[in-house]
C-alpha cells in the first residue's frame, strides 16, 4: 500500500540521526526501528484517503520540514509557562524539547519499588522490561505515525508500578517544547502490575508563537485488578502539530479512567485505543476546545475482546470561529464478548457559523447478548437554560458564557484530584470569554 503522504525530507534526514537515537546497543530495538523506518519510507504519513484519517489532512508536515535539533542546552524554557502548568502536590517529571530534565523534576519519596525514569535511562538500566513491553500494544496499528514514532523516538517515560503498590499521589509528565521547527518524538511505557494503582498526568505545552511537530506514543499495560487514571492536558501553541496516541491493554478486571483535555494546537490528533479482557472497565472522558483555525481530532477505539467488560465514553467539544473538531469513536464487541456493557456519547457545541465538527460513532458488534448505546449531538446553547439564568438576574451574555463554561466544566468535575481540577479550571477560564465568570465562585 502506498497511498500515503510522502515524507521524503524526513526519510532523508533519518540517516543523520539514526545513530544517535537511544538504545543503539540493543539489537532488538534497532531491528524494530529499522523495520518501522522501512514501512514509513514506503507509506509516508497517513492521507485523507485512509478511512481513519478522512477528516484530517497532514500534508503540511512535509512542507514544513521539522527537524530533530541537537543540543538540549539550546532550550529556551519559559519558566512561567512551566510553573502555570505544574501541580504542587504531585511527582513531576519535566521533559524539555524531548530531553528529561532531572533538575526541574520532583521525584523524591517515590516508593523504592517503583521505577520512574526517562526512556533513555530505561533502555540502559531495564532493557529486559522495556523489551517485554515495547510494541506489544501496537499490533495492528499500521498507520504512518506509529512507524514514524518507533523509528524516531528519542525520549519518553518509563514507569513501572509493581504488584499491590498504590501511588499516593499523581505523577505528572510535562513535555515542554521551546524551539521553533523542532521535531520531538517520544515513546512512553507504563507498566501497572496486578492490584497496583497509579495516576499519571501528561501535560503538553510549548513556548508562545512557535511551530513544531510532536509525536508522542504511550504504551500502557494494566495487569489484573490494577487501576490507572490517565489525564492528558494538551495546551499547545496555535502553530504546533500534535500527534498523540495511547494504546492500552487491560487484563482481567483492570480499570482505566482517562480524561483528555485538548485545548489544541494548529492540528492536534488524540488517539486512545483500549483492549479489554474479561470484566475490565474503561472510562474515557474527553473535552476539546477549538478556536481560530484549529483542528482537533479525537480518535478512540475500544475493543471488547472478552465477556463482562464495561466501557463508558463521553467526549465533548466546543468549536468557535473557524475551528474544526473531529470525533471518531469506534467500539468493537468481539464474538466472545457477551454481556458487554458499553456507552459512547459525543456532544458538541458550535459557537460560530463557521465552526465545524465531524462526528462518527461506530459500533461493530459480533456478540448477541450485549448492551451498547451511543449518542451524538451537535448544537447551540439551550435557550430555556439562558432564560432560567436570566430569571436569576444574570444578563444574557453572561448566561451564555456561564453555559458554555458549564458545558466544559462538567468534564473538569469528573477529575478527582483537587489541584488538577483547579489547574484545569484555570486553563478553562483563561480560554473562555470571561465576562461575569468568577473563579472564586466556582469551587
Amino acid at each position, binding site marked *: 500500500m502506498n497511498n500515503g503522504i510522502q515524507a521524503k525530507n524526513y526519510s532523508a534526514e533519518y540517516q543523520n540521526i539514526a545513530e544517535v537515537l537511544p538504545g543503539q546497543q540493543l539489537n532488538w530495538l534497532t531491528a524494530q526501528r529499522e523495520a518501522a523506518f522501512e514501512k514509513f519510507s514506503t507509506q509516508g504519513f497517513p492521507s485523507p484517503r485512509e478511512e481513519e484519517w478522512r477528516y484530517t489532512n497532514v500534508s503540511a508536515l512535509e512542507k514544513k520540514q521539522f527537524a530533530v535539533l541537537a543540543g538540549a542546552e539550546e532550550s529556551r524554557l519559559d519558566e512561567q509557562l512551566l510553573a502555570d502548568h505544574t501541580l504542587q502536590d504531585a511527582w513531576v517529571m519535566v521533559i524539555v524539547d524531548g530531553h528529561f530534565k532531572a533538575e526541574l523534576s520532583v521525584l523524591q519519596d517515590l516508593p523504592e519499588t517503583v521505577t520512574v525514569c526517562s526512556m533513555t535511562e530505561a533502555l540502559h538500566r531495564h532493557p529486559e522490561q522495556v523489551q517485554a513491553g515495547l510494541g506489544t500494544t501496537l499490533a495492528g496499528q499500521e498507520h504512518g505515525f506509529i512507524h514514524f514514532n518507533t523509528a524516531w523516538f528519542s525520549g519518553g517515560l518509563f514507569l513501572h508500578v509493581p504488584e499491590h503498590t498504590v501511588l499516593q499521589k499523581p505523577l505528572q509528565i510535562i513535555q515542554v517544547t521551546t524551539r521553533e521547527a523542532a521535531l520531538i518524538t517520544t515513546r512512553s511505557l507504563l507498566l501497572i502490575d496486578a492490584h497496583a494503582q497509579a495516576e499519571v498526568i501528561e501535560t503538553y505545552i510549548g513556548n508562545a508563537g512557535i511551530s513544531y511537530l510532536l509525536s508522542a506514543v504511550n504504551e500502557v499495560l494494566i495487569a489484573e485488578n490494577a487501576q490507572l487514571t490517565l489525564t492528558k492536558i494538551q495546551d499547545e501553541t496555535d502553530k504546533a502539530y500534535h500527534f498523540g496516541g495511547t494504546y492500552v491493554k487491560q487484563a482481567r478486571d483492570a480499570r482505566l479512567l482517562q480524561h483528555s483535555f485538548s485545548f489544541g494546537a494548529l492540528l492536534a490528533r488524540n488517539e486512545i485505543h483500549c483492549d479489554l479482557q474479561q470484566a475490565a472497565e474503561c472510562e474515557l472522558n474527553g473535552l476539546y476546545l477549538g478556536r481560530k483555525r484549529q483542528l482537533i481530532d479525537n480518535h478512540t477505539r475500544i475493543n471488547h475482546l472478552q465477556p463482562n467488560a464495561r466501557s463508558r465514553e463521553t467526549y465533548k467539544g466546543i468549536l468557535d470561529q473557524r475551528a474544526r473538531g473531529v470525533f471518531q469513536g469506534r467500539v468493537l464487541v468481539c464474538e466472545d464478548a457477551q454481556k458487554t456493557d458499553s456507552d459512547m456519547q459525543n456532544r458538541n457545541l458550535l459557537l460560530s457559523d463557521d465552526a465545524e465538527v465531524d462526528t462518527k460513532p461506530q459500533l461493530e458488534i459480533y456478540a448477541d447478548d450485549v448492551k451498547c448505546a451511543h449518542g451524538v449531538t451537535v448544537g447551540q446553547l*439551550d*435557550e*430555556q*437554560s439562558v*432564560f*432560567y*439564568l*436570566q*430569571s*436569576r*438576574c*444574570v*444578563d*444574557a451574555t*453572561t448566561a451564555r458564557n*456561564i*453555559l458554555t*463554561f*458549564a*458545558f*466544559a*466544566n*462538567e468534564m473538569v*468535575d469528573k477529575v478527582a484530584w483537587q489541584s488538577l481540577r483547579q489547574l484545569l479550571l484555570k486553563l478553562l477560564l483563561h480560554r473562555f470569554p470571561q465576562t*461575569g465568570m*468568577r473563579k472564586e*465562585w*466556582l469551587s
Partner: protein
Amino acid sequence: MLSIENLHVAIEDKEILKGISLDVNPGEIHAIMGPNGSGKSTLSHVLSGKAGYQVTTGKITYKGLNLTAMEPEIRAREGIFLAFQYPVEIPGVSNIYLLKAALNSIRKHQGLDEVDAIDFLSIVKEKTRLLEMDEKFLYRAINEGFSSGEKKRNEILQMAVLEPLLCILDETDSGLDIDALKIVAAGINSLRTAQRSFVMITHYQRLLDYVKPDFVHVLAHGRIVKSGGPELALELESKGYGWVEEQAA
C-alpha cells in the same frame, strides 16, 4: 405593586391571553387557578420576560415601571422571582455559584457592595435548614439529577436567599408528595411579609390548604372568569372547572 391592565398576549399570532386585568398590592397572595391550556403558564412567562410572547394590547406596570420593556434579568434584579414549573438542569454550574452570582447582581443593581463571603454562607445555610435540604445540595450542579421535589425545594431556596418583592410560583405544587408539599409551603409562609406579594399559579387546591391566599382567580380561555376569596378554591375543588367556564360563556 403589580398592575396588569387588559393584557392580550399572543404566541406566533395565536392569542393566548385575551384581556387580563389584575392588581396585586404589597403583602397580598393571589392564587391563579384554571384548567390546562387556560393560559396560566403564559401569564407567568410574560411577567418574568420570557422571549417568544407578543404583548399585543394592554400593559403591565410593576413598582410604577413599564414591565414589558424590561429584560428578564432587570425584572429579576428589580425583585421579580419566577419559581419554575420545570426547573432547568444546568450541569457544570453549582447551586451556590448561581446563588452568589444572582445575589450580587441584585446588590450591584441596588448600589450595594458584594455580599461578604462568610455572611453569604451563613445566610444560605440558614435557608437550607429552613427547607430541610442537605447542605451538600449547594455544591451540586444546578438541579442536576434532583428529584422533582428537590428541584421545587431548590426554587424556594433561591427565592428565600434572593428575597424578591414579587414571587411568581408556577405550579410549584406539581410533582410534590405531601411531605415535600408541607416543607415547600412552610418555606413560602416564612417569606410572607407586609411588603412581599405572591402570585401562585396552580391547577389544584391542595397547596392552598397550606398557603392561604387572599384572592383566588379562575383563568379560562385566556380570561379571568371569576374572582373571589379562598372559599372559591374549595368550591372549584368540589365542583371542578366546568361550571365557571359555563357561567363565563
